């Protein structure tokens, strides 16, 4: 089984946003990056499917040169090789542009199964998977919590709202967007990290100019819904004041 895993590099969770002068994007020089969390689960699922059905796992990522960091990490975790569509303009590209950049080189590979994360932790479009599937002309399903592959078809468990689920089947090739928590993650071993150095990363340029379908006209911290009483002081002082307010003001204790 030939499996693709689409991986996006995103700012770390600890990152504190700082804006560019024009307040339309983030100051990239301040950022440290990591693998988008659901993509790590997609990768793990691909590795497990390979263990069961044999075949290969190919990491696919669209982004500037810096995304090699997460590509290497995925190779260290056990992916066989990588496809990197490289362009500086892909750094802030939306899901539409990223899918457009990856569609042609991925189509050439004729994957049996394409796995993506359900949503990126940076832009959070939740669009890339279904857009790529449409471009590849293959069926898709989203927010997947279990993958059972068979010769020629796949049966998946899809998460619905509020604790409901549903199984569905579709023919291969297919694309699935993977939800966090589908499996338990394994991390890279030293052996994996050494082996990754020898693995192939194929770099290609996008076939056409990177063009996003949405333009950001302003970027700002969110508006507060409530007046929050921030309680200052040492841990003991703050605790005392909080308990007093919960008893006397909010009356919830």
């Amino acid at each position: 089984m030939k499996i693709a895993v689409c991986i996006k590099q995103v700012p770390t969770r600890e990152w504190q946003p700082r804006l560019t002068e024009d307040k339309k994007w983030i100051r990239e020089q301040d950022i440290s990056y990591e693998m988008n969390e659901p993509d790590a689960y997609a990768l793990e699922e691909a590795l497990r499917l390979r263990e069961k059905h044999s075949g290969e796992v190919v990491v696919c990522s669209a982004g500037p040169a810096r995304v090699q960091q997460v590509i290497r990490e995925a190779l260290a975790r056990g992916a066989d090789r990588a496809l990197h569509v490289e362009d500086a303009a892909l750094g802030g590209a939306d899901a539409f542009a990223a899918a457009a950049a990856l569609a042609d080189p991925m189509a050439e590979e004729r994957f049996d199964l394409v796995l993506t994360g359900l949503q990126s932790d940076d832009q959070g479009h939740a669009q890339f998977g279904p857009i790529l599937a449409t471009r590849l002309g293959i069926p898709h399903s989203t927010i997947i919590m279990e993958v059972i592959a068979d010769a020629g078809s796949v049966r998946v468990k899809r998460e619905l709202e509020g604790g409901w689920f549903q199984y569905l089947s579709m023919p291969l090739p297919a694309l699935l967007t993977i939800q966090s928590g589908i499996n338990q993650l394994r991390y890279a071993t030293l052996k994996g990290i050494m082996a990754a150095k020898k693995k192939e990363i194929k770099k290609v340029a996008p076939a056409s100019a990177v063009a996003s379908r949405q333009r950001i006209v302003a970027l700002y911290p969110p508006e507060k819904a409530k007046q929050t009483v921030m309680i200052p002081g040492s841990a003991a002082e703050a605790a005392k004041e909080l308990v007093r307010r919960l008893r006397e003001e909010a009356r919830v204790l």
Partner: protein
Amino acid sequence: MILVVAEQREGKLNRASWEAVAAGQQLLREADIAVLKIVVLGRAVSALANELAAASSAGVIAVENQSLGTYTPDAFVQALRQIVTTESPQFVVFPHTYQTRDFVPALAAAMDRAVVTDAIAIRNVNGAPAFARPMFQGKLTADVVPEGPTPHLVTFQIGAFRADAVARGASPAPITAAEATIDASAVRQKPEEPFQEVRQAVDLSQAERIVAVGRGIKSQDNLPLAEALAKALGAELAASRPICDNGWLPMERQIGSSGQTVAPKLYVALGISGAIQHLVGMKGARTIVAINKDAEAPIFEVADYGIQGDLFEIAPAIAAELQKG
């Protein structure tokens, strides 16, 4: 023209459909567009079309087809593509649900049009509408303008618009039936019946007080610290999704869009950032306390009381204070 796509399941309208109608009506004013229509799709939707006709609109379009009885992305893309092409709207508006997450980007790609997801507000930028949407896990909000030829597709976050803000018409809007030809052999997904995992042993929706832990707790070994605080408060223990994903607490204790929705008297969030999927499950709590080392964490936007600091110091201090009685 604006086309609002209502969502239904088994003959019942999703409440978020009304929120989408309210968003569509506001967009009508902001974008200075004359006509709004609502479309509803399914096997038998005439009762739903009657319900939707109460909203002020130029008409409700009922699309009935056997292949739309059980939702599949392929059938919905086929049907809506035809309706959207015929109606030729400038905007197509949807609620941001698990269902629209599944097919709206595919519809946009099939039509080669822009789609903005998870919008929370409509802004006016030099006379043209822009859509506010969260980015970077809610740390920032972006105003975005969809580009390229219309129609532009927009999905609105649940709870961002109020269902009771829908303007009603003086008389019911006219209902028309529209045909969609669906090639059933081209519908590749074969869905089975939805189900719930084994009945939940803990019903957190009945809890008066809840202490919820997030990834700030760092490891499973630190959970007793949260348990001690919960005990001191007479509260149930709950968690954000990553805690349950890691298997540190059972799934049935997860709060949020894919877990339980709760409205206790007191909700204490320990080391939870406040992503929207978590907030939808707890923002109905009467009093919310957030403890987080990051003063900018979005959880503080919904909190009544906040303490910025290290939960490993603050949680034990609160437990100790309560024990003093």
